[in-house]
């Protein structure tokens, strides 16, 4: 790729050969540094994306060659497969419950910790810990037991086991995500500390109370961070798998109430060996995440405020 650059550069600086050298070297060096990433981007990202798009128009079971079926997978998905729609509704419900709750909790705790003189570092770490532990199968199994019949939640609230009730099981999964509010909280806290104290002082001089300061200083100054958290957590939530798998013993039950999108994709592709169908599902997921992200970016123009001198 560097070869095309050489003639133009020789033309530009023909006389001073030694001066030209380091520049060309650096261009070549950049590609050496980039080579693992470029290889990965082509072989493990771009090529697979193209292949999965192709497979989504085929019947493929891993053993026989793919058979072109046109739009049949998509038609079947949208019109003949109630379990597919079930998984869509389940996932959207989960995202709508888990993400706002998680972010709200993260923001409240970050605001509480912000002004703290003592104990801030301790709380920050302690609240963050579940974000690392919660992704594990270990904690997912704990969740199933605690929310099961005879588990702690049943004993406390007397609601019976949530895990066995179609109306409640998804909430148990969502609460495991909410429990991991530490990661966005840490980002909020870092964002809050970047807000210059002078802004609050100026607002106070202008007679703004605490609430007014929150609305007129904190919210706009924090909006880029809020936006970042919202996009990241939403994208992640669409791909939830492990807790739903553990809570429902790998089945998505009861009555498909925890059959999230990725679990149904796993079921179609790797259990039922319908790789074409699973590829179609993967592409719809990709498009939906793309559209949701684009919409978030679009609406962000009206509520995300970027200070003119951007970085710090």
């Amino acid at each position, binding site marked *: 790729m560097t070869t095309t650059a050489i003639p133009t550069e020789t033309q530009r600086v023909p006389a001073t050969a030694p001066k030209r050298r380091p520049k060309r070297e650096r261009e070549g*060096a950049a*590609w050496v540094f980039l080579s693992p990433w470029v*290889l990965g981007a082509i072989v493990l990202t771009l090529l*697979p994306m193209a292949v999965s798009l192709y497979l989504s128009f085929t019947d493929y079971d891993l053993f026989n060659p793919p058979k072109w079926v046109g739009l049949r997978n998509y038609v079947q998905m949208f019109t003949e497969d109630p379990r597919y729609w079930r998984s869509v509704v389940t996932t959207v419900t989960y995202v709508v419950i888990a993400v706002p709750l998680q972010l709200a909790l993260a923001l409240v705790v970050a605001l509480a910790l912000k002004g703290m003189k003592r104990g801030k570092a301790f709380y920050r770490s302690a609240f963050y810990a579940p974000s690392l532990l919660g992704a594990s199968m270990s904690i997912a199994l704990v969740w199933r037991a605690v929310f099961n019949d005879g588990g702690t939640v049943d004993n406390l609230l007397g609601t019976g086991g949530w895990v066995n009730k179609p109306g409640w099981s998804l909430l148990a999964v969502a609460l495991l995500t909410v429990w991991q509010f530490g*990661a966005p909280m840490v980002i909020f806290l870092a964002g809050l500390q970047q807000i210059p104290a002078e802004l609050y002082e100026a607002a106070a001089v202008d007679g703004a109370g605490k609430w007014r300061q929150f609305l007129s200083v904190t919210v706009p100054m924090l909006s880029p961070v809020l936006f970042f958290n919202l996009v990241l957590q939403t994208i992640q939530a669409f791909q939830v798998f492990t807790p739903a798998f553990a809570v429902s013993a790998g089945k998505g039950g009861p009555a498909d109430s925890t059959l999230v999108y990725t679990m149904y994709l796993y079921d179609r592709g790797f259990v039922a060996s319908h790789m074409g169908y699973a590829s179609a599902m993967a592409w719809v997921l990709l498009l939906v995440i793309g559209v949701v992200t684009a919409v978030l970016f679009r609406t962000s123009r009206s509520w995300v405020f970027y200070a003119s001198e951007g970085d710090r």
Partner: protein
Amino acid sequence: MTSTAVSHKPVRWGRVAVHLGCLAALLVMLYPLAWLLATSLKPADEVIASLDLLPSHLEWSNYSTAMEGVNDVSIWRLLTNSLLIAGGAVLGNVISCSLAAYAFARLRFRLRGPLFAFMIATIMLPHHAVLIPQYIIFNQLGLVNTYWPLILPKFLATEAFFVFLIVQFMRGLPRELEEAARIDGCGPFRSFFQVVLPLSRPALITTAIFTFIWTWNDFFTQLIYLFDPDKFTLTLALRSFVDASSTSAFGPMFAMSVIALLPIVLFFLAFQRFLVEGMASSGLKG
């Protein structure tokens, strides 16, 4: 922070209330962990029947049962497998992501803008969009049911999040050091290895620890690629308990869960500063 200086008495009470609220929230949040630890030491008949958090006596045999492992595979084997995969992933991510990050942060080359944008976009790309063809590739290569599909992608910087994290860090390093090195005759390779890389240690440590924890916790990829019980990781072995509903296996199951969580807890306690700050800086400076 300065607002507390405005008035004294009422703010103090407010502060006490905030601390009480935080402690209460913390108790609720830590409950599942306490429950896990307590249940791993409970005798079989107390797991469901008793409402107490604490066991009547400590049933250490849960742990000796857990040590025997699952499906005739000892826990040492499972632990070794988990460590092998996580270790390989750490090595791969640290090497490949720092190389790519240096190019993006410090070197000029054609297509840098579009490639950087593409790299950022892959952070948002759902894994499932590339999952099935990747599986087919590894299947064709005869590498399914080996550790290669879990380790090899990390050597190709496929986890763009870490490339981004290291780029952000490297951009903050003073350029003068490299310029001085260049005047002294350092090419890009020497200035990478001898100037930038040593200075980037905090970002590399953050990458290493996050990679370890995420790989250790990863379930989906392992579920797809590994099916020989001999090759199972601790996470996958715990999966065998997912279907089992008998309460007699509860104690050993949670003993094994504790063992599986232990490395993460230890990593967290040792490196929490890097982890928390690594997470914090990922959302800023964007």
